[in-house]
């Protein structure tokens, strides 16, 4: 029987992978991908808790939907920043983007 702990173990593993990606990647887009993994891990938790602990108002689903929306917003703004940085500095590596004014 698959219980809540299975989902939690999986989501923490996914979160760890995302964190590893965020910490080791140099490219801003790749860091964003790591963040997406972490957000997905959080969403799995939200939905799993709704199923196994508290289904009132399907709260977890609402939270997951809001997280997905905000993830889309974050991707849009983040990628706009990347495009802008690439246009001015010809790099998208976060350790080389160190100017306050382009």
């Amino acid at each position: 029987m698959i219980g809540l702990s299975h989902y939690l173990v999986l989501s923490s593993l996914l979160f760890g992978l995302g964190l590893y990606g965020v910490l080791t990647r140099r490219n801003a887009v790749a860091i964003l991908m790591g963040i997406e993994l972490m957000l997905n891990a959080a969403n799995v938790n939200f939905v799993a808790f709704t199923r196994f602990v508290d289904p009132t108002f399907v709260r977890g689903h609402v939270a997951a939907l809001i997280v997905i929306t905000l993830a889309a917003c974050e991707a849009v703004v983040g990628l706009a920043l990347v495009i802008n940085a690439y246009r001015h500095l010809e790099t998208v590596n976060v350790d080389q983007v160190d100017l306050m004014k382009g």
Partner: protein
Amino acid sequence: MNAEALAFYALAAMVVVGGGLVVQSRNLVHAAVSLVPTLLGVAGLYVLLHAEFVTAIQLLIYVGAITVLILFVILLTEGATGLRVPQRNEQVPLALVVSGALVLLLWAVLLRVPWGPPAGTLPPYNPGAVGRSLLMPYVLAFEVTSLVILACLVGAIVIARREE
């Protein structure tokens, strides 16, 4: 092993292998394409958890929009994302220790808690339940989210616009 367990382990393998490729691939296009199986696997987990509406939105927004956007930007900034540029910094061992320790800590806590069996029942028509929930108890969160979307729309256009 019953159907649910089989499906869960298959999806879990998909998520973990895909996620591993996302953070490990030397080629960023490969990493971005690996997001697809990972996100599809997560969508499959939502199916197992009876969250149909979230599944559809996950497919629509994450797989259909965010991944495409990420791929698009990687292809547009080819000069900085090519194979010639090293994609990893010098923090690999440190990051391994930190994220490994975090995962182990989480597991140690999670596996010690006696989680009970499923409590209560989910409403039968999932999209309707989500809609009612969004517009009644959580209407404030809903409205604030739409404000954030507006702000990010304007922000993205201003940032990415080419100055004349």
